[in-house]
């Protein structure tokens, strides 16, 4: 070497220091500047970051990106950059982390049920003045009440419904015929559900079940959704699992205990459903393979099932008891707090664009989610769609009986409390009453600080 050993060592040490310092600096510098020069260099182009989840099967990523690029061709000064962030649960975590790390997206799609948590953590802005500026009452009143209810906290509007869903039953018409049931009449109430399911159960020569009567998702994240429907179907006066202000829950009413016992009986007493915790993700595939006669699932899977089922299938309302009832689900648009007014208005432009009646109708057709605006159902594309796929109309018809799913402050924790205790009852560790009493006590404890 042409230098002394000590100098070489010193140099090596310095290089290592600079390299590691550079790595730390580069790793931390993730923020976009948020603006970019447009091609003619005249105006600054605003680049908005949007986080979005994908919870159902289908090419949603391509559709979102098409939506963003269509918007850009009409609004050349705004670019929306969609960033895929996993399923709804993952997205909630990513948004919270981004907000706490001070690198939040400008707008995002998240569960409608997250609104209390987002408001209490001061992460979003109310949209009333943006609505007054562009859209007004005419815009808001066009949204179906079952979906719009989910946007209010303390009288202000905090989100706009976009891809909403509700739970329906899918049933195998061929299996119905085989079991001697009328393929055009799905079960309308709990008694018929049990009776039809018992006929649909098919066993092989060894006595193993090769087709179950009914499938109902029971894992964390899905149990509270379907149970919301059962609660609405059985409650005295149509009460939901929680109060409208998100501060109280009503888990252990006698009617809810009855509903939970009914679900346990489906597995243990009538044996029309496999024992254990039935999984949400297994149901559509198993249904398509003919392993279930009836499944409860989201309308969002309609496209997937209609494409892949090799048999005639039908859709129906969730069988009622005292009345029909169904939970709503799905995602709304939120705008993050802390971004400039200019960016808020740009984000609002995109939201208005994405929630135009025709675009919502097209989204409905492409994904199976339900369009949340009444005027979407008057568009010709929607009317043609119902002509081709009449099963899709069921979800829309059921909306008049639909109410929001379990939504409270600290909702992730409350969901977990409900789901854990629900599962304890399903696997038999607790009785239905013990499980719901425990859930009520634990949830009330958590909600105490919000009273």
């Amino acid at each position, binding site marked *: 070497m042409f230098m002394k050993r*000590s100098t070489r060592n*010193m140099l090596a040490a310095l290089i290592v220091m600079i390299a590691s310092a550079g790595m730390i600096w580069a790793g931390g510098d993730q923020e976009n500047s948020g603006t970019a020069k447009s091609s003619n260099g005249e105006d600054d182009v605003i680049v908005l970051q949007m986080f979005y989840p994908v919870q159902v099967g289908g090419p949603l990523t391509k559709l979102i990106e098409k939506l963003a690029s269509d918007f850009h061709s009409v609004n050349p000064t705004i670019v929306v950059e969609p960033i895929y962030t996993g399923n709804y649960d993952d997205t909630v*975590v990513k948004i919270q982390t981004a907000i706490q790390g001070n690198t939040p997206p400008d707008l995002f799609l998240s569960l409608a049920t997250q609104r209390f948590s987002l408001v209490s953590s001061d992460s979003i802005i109310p949209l009333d003045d943006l609505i007054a500026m562009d859209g007004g009452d005419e815009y808001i009143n066009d949204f179906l009440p079952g979906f719009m209810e989910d946007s209010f906290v303390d009288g202000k509007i905090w989100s706009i419904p976009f891809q909403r869903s509700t739970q329906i039953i899918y049933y195998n018409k061929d299996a119905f015929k085989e079991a001697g049931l009328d393929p055009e009449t799905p079960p309308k109430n709990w008694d018929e559900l049990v009776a039809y399911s018992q006929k649909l159960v098919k066993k092989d020569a060894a006595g193993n079940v090769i087709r179950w009567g009914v499938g109902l998702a029971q894992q964390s994240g899905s149990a509270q959704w379907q149970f919301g429907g059962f609660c609405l179907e059985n409650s005295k006066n149509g009460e939901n699992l929680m109060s409208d202000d998100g501060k109280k829950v009503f888990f252990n009413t006698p009617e809810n205990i009855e509903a939970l016992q009914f679900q346990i009986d489906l597995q243990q007493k009538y044996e029309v459903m496999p024992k254990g915790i039935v999984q949400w993700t297994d149901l559509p595939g*198993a249904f398509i393979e003919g392993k279930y006669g009836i499944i409860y699932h989201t309308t969002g899977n309609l496209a997937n099932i209609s494409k892949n089922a090799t048999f005639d299938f039908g859709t129906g309302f969730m069988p009622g008891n005292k009345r029909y009832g169904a939970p709503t689900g799905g995602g709304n648009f939120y705008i993050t707090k802390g971004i400039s007014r200019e960016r808020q208005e740009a984000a609002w432009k995109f939201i208005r664009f994405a929630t135009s009646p025709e675009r919502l109708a097209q989204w409905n057709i492409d994904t199976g989610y339900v369009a949340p605006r009444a005027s979407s159902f008057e568009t010709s594309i929607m009317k043609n769609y119902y002509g081709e796929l009449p099963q899709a109309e069921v979800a829309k018809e059921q909306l008049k009986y639909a109410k929001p799913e379990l939504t409270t402050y600290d909702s*992730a*924790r409350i969901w977990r409390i409900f789901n854990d205790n629900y599962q304890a009852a399903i696997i038999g*560790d607790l009785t239905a009453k013990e499980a719901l009493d425990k859930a009520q006590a634990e949830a009330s404890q958590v909600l105490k600080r919000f009273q």
Partner: protein
Amino acid sequence: MAVFSVYSFPKKDQLVKNRALTSQQTKKRKQSWKRDGIACLLLAPSLIFLTMFTLIPIVKSFYLSLMDLQLGMKKPVFIGLDNYTYLFSDPLFWKVMGNTVLFSLLTVIPSMVLGLALALLLNMRHKLTGLFRVSFFSPVVMPMIAVASIWMFIYMPDAGLLDQLLKSFGLPGQIFLQRSDTVLPALSVVYNWKEAGFLMIFFLSGLQNISTEMYEAARIDGARKFTIFWKLTFPLLMPTTIFVSTIALTDSFKLVDHIAMMTEGMPNNSSTTLLYFIYQNGFTYFNQGIASTLTVILLIIMLIAASLQFFTADSRIHYN
């Protein structure tokens, strides 16, 4: 600092001979400063990372464990030891601790025994030994998420591999992952399958460090195979065994990817272990106070476990 002990201090007689330092000695002093300086610079990157990602978070965890900081709160509120008393009176916390202890029992000893057995089997020169070593080690290099996905399919009721196998023998299907009494054993099978190869490697290198002369001597003395193992191999392997047991114990607390992927703690928190519980509180409920408290508890448990192992086993080590 250990760094400086590497460098020798100027020899005593050199200093005594001449009070005034010769230019030779000044040069040597300068050189030793230079060497210390270089040493510091070379250590600095590791020190920076260690401080930023280990030391500061530990201090912050202790600090936050004394605070109430939940979703929606702007600033943490000092509540002293309330987080600790809340946890110690929460039946869910004790359930999680019980799960963690049970899971450690189901994984540390079986994976070590399995690893040692595999190492003993593969510690011979045979045409196929290399192939077997690779195949036993390959689960280790697979990402846990991929392993968890495969095993989820194996355990899937009805359509899964295990059920297909059981049905072909006319046995009834199973729902291991959905029953509170079988979920932890089922998860520990997955874990042991993955970890045994890792521990096997350590045991292999330990075995190969034992000189063959001792085995020859034992055989000449007419010792049986089991006696050779118990009185010769096992004691000489003790340093390796201590090391492996520390790794196995810390890993059983550390690796929770399979829980996150396969059961998410279900059914009813029967498969929630301490680290997964920390994740839930920190990143699902965003309750930083409780999550920090649990982290401090985990840290203390790990420290106790590590020190117990080192202090009690010290007497048993025979060094070559």
